């Protein structure tokens, strides 16, 4: 069986405590992952200085080159995986085995990670708003005629990662060119991506001491967040709420991403059907940037019927099938619970499932050992209905009848809003809304994101603070 070790400042460590994860199809044990005890993590994190010093010894330009080489290694090369080697194709099969993600989607996510690594320079420029890299290296300098100085807020970034989609790993990668070592807690079923990214970095010449990888339980994850100067946590409200009031920790919870169609465009809704379908179903509907609701002032019934018809065509296919768009749930009980939650929500008057009439089976289907939730469209008569703003890890969308006055207040916190409108008033209201994290104006799918833009906070600002700086001029 494959064994994935802990990495303690880059050094592999095989724990006596292991978690085994089964293949989602065969239910046979597929991988054994060393588990770090909380005390071991705390002990290692007493020294965060070495990793930081090793990384800071490189210039930003050198680190960008390392990212660029790591991009190719990540995409193409055989890299260490415990005592074995992992090819790119192994990686695709392995991630699919434990998360259920079809190979084609795994490859697409691989492409996203490759893109962030290959374009690390642009990403960095986006995060720092084009500050000269030499200023970043020195910590002070002039930019645009102004004196600038920055200092790191932390000696390492602790990240508690999810299982849903490898794309999220793109968010912490820029920490490396920003010279902040990483302390990663992988999702229990998705150790593959962070481990492979680390190995690509090391092969590309990054100092191993800058990478710690601790598969662990909840107390261990808490130790990471408590002991690193800065942190990120991905998860649902129950796992992130503990850190809600800790300014050191950036929280990546549910996205509740949305599409809003303005009154000026609503009669042309058919033109935007593709954008809606992509926003809902890209990446198997597993991402926080997938749209989980579409807010409209008219044509709600027609839009929901059209979406249902299109989405009902998405059916389970084999993991290896290049046309696969849907991922089974690695844990069938999760699928059952989600389906029940939707059914319960629909008992409240004012909402109905539209997809049921467009498919021949139930929402929850089983194929061998695999459980799938088929795409689901719910029509909500008003914004107050409990199903109007729900997010699940499969293609699920509520089409919500609303009024122009309700936007944006009724939307609530939204990671991505795609506003299909040219109405300056609506645009202005969305631009001014603190609830909208990423805003697309026009027909941009919510699932298409530009990595040089901040995402739930700007990583540079999370890791660095600006100080006032003056330097006497020699006379």
């Amino acid at each position, binding site marked *: 069986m494959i064994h994935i070790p802990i990495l303690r400042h880059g050094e592999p460590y095989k724990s006596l405590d292991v978690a085994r994860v089964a293949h989602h199809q065969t239910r046979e044990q597929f991988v054994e992952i060393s588990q770090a005890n909380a005390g071991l993590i705390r*002990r290692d994190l007493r020294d965060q200085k070495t990793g930081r010093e090793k990384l800071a010894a490189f210039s930003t330009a050198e680190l960008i080159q390392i990212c660029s080489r790591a991009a190719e290694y990540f995409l193409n090369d055989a890299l260490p995986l415990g005592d074995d080697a992992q090819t790119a194709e192994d990686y695709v099969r392995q991630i699919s085995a434990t998360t259920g993600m079809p190979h084609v989607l795994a490859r697409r996510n691989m492409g996203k990670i490759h893109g962030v690594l290959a374009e690390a320079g642009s990403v960095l420029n986006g995060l720092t708003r084009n500050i000269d890299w030499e200023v970043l290296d020195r910590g002070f300098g002039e930019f645009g005629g102004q004196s600038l100085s920055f200092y790191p807020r932390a000696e390492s970034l602790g990240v508690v990662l999810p299982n849903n989609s490898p794309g999220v790993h793109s968010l912490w990668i820029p920490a490396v060119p920003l010279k902040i070592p990483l302390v990663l807690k992988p999702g229990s079923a998705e150790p593959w991506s962070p481990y492979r990214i680390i190995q690509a970095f090391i092969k590309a010449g990054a100092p191993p001491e800058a990478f710690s990888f601790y598969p662990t339980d909840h107390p261990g994850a808490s130790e990471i967040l408590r002991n690193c100067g800065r942190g990120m946590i991905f998860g649902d409200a129950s796992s992130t709420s503990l850190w809600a009031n800790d300014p050191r920790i950036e929280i990546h919870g549910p996205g509740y991403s949305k599409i809003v169609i303005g009154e000026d465009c609503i009669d042309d809704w058919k033109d935007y059907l593709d954008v809606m379908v992509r926003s809902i179903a890209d990446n198997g509907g597993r991402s926080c940037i997938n749209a989980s609701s579409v807010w409209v002032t008219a044509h709600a019934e027609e839009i929901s019927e059209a979406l249902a018809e299109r989405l009902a065509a998405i059916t389970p296919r084999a993991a290896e099938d290049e046309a696969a768009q849907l991922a089974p749930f690695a844990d069938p009980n999760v699928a059952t619970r989600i389906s029940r939650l939707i059914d319960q929500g629909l008992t409240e008057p004012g909402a109905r499932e539209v997809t049921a009439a467009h498919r021949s089976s139930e929402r929850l289907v089983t194929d061998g050992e695999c459980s799938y939730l088929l795409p689901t469209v719910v029509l909500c008569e008003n914004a107050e209905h409990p199903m109007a703003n729900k997010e699940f890890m499969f293609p699920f969308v509520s089409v919500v009848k609303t009024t122009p006055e309700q936007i944006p207040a009724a939307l609530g916190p939204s990671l991505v809003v795609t506003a299909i409108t040219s109405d300056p008033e609506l645009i202005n209201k969305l631009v001014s809304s603190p609830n909208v994290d990423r805003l697309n104006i026009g027909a941009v799918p919510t699932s298409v994101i530009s990595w040089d833009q901040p995402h739930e906070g700007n990583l540079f600002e999370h890791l660095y603070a600006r100080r006032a700086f003056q330097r006497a001029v020699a006379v």
Partner: protein
Amino acid sequence: MSTAEAPLQANIQESRANLDAWVREVVQWHFAPDTGCPFWLNYATELGWDPRKEIQTYDDLSRLGPFQDEWLRGGPVRRWVPKGYQNRPVYTFETGGSTGVPKSRINIEDFRLDYEAFSPTLPDEFFPKGSDWLSLGPTGPRRLRLAVEHLAQFRAGICFMIDLDPRWVIKLLKMGQPKMAEQYKQHVVEQGLTLLRAHDNIRCLFTTPKLLEALCEKVSLKKLGITGVFCGGTEMTPQFHRFAVEELLEGAYFAPTYGNTLMGLAVHKPRREEDNFAVIYYPPLPRAMIEVVDPDNPDRVVDYGETGRVRLTTLTKEFFMPRFLERDEAEREPPCELYPWDGVRNVRPFSRLQANVVEGVY
């Protein structure tokens, strides 16, 4: 059977015979009207048969049925005091209290006897006689508080103490206050550090796994002169065992134990490379027995190496507790040369009950 196994087999048989003889003596004591406790005397009247006549071996104890958890929760606690000891001072000790009303167990001198029996398993080289101890563990109504102090005294030492209320820690965690729980832990550790720094003769430490970690994050045990660590109170994994030996202890002797208020304490089998840091315990026969049974059929002891639920039997003249199902699971371990009776390997919380229990966190 090889010639090497022959003495072990003989020892196993001898220990079993001793156990059976001790069972007869203890049953005689607890069910005799002039020495037994009200609970068991009353229990016997409902049986319709006389345990003193019919229980002749350890296996016969199954005829009494399983010991019920609730019997120890709430009073009157005097129903457990044997008439044979009615004029002796009585202590009452409590279990953790993480699952509602704590279980109470009366004690007269069992805690002393158990720890005196345990004392020879601690090597003098690392737990020097005459050196002092620090007990950095749960206090209050817990048996450990007095037992560790007695162990120190029995070894001609003096025991320094701190206060630790594990129920408050459990409450903090249940209230979603992990930061406060962490602060409380640090408060406990700082008290211990103050004592360690102020008293040069402290060489021996009793503590729990988590407090040992927390202590070693702040100081080097070696620099403080600690040469022996007796560790228990909560679950201990092989990984923790290895971590402690390789990274925390700096050469100090590590004596993990498994025990509780109801049973006493089980001693750790000395570490051997081939056991790969498995935490293997043997009960203090004949005063207590630990078995591993089929959770779905607790009358069946599982095979060696098989996983099952831990079943305790306490057999002292103060306290008789046959066939008590613990909230732990483990693998059944075969007898060894040093302890020619059944042991348990890698005890951990019983997986089927885990959702309902906040484990000891101190």
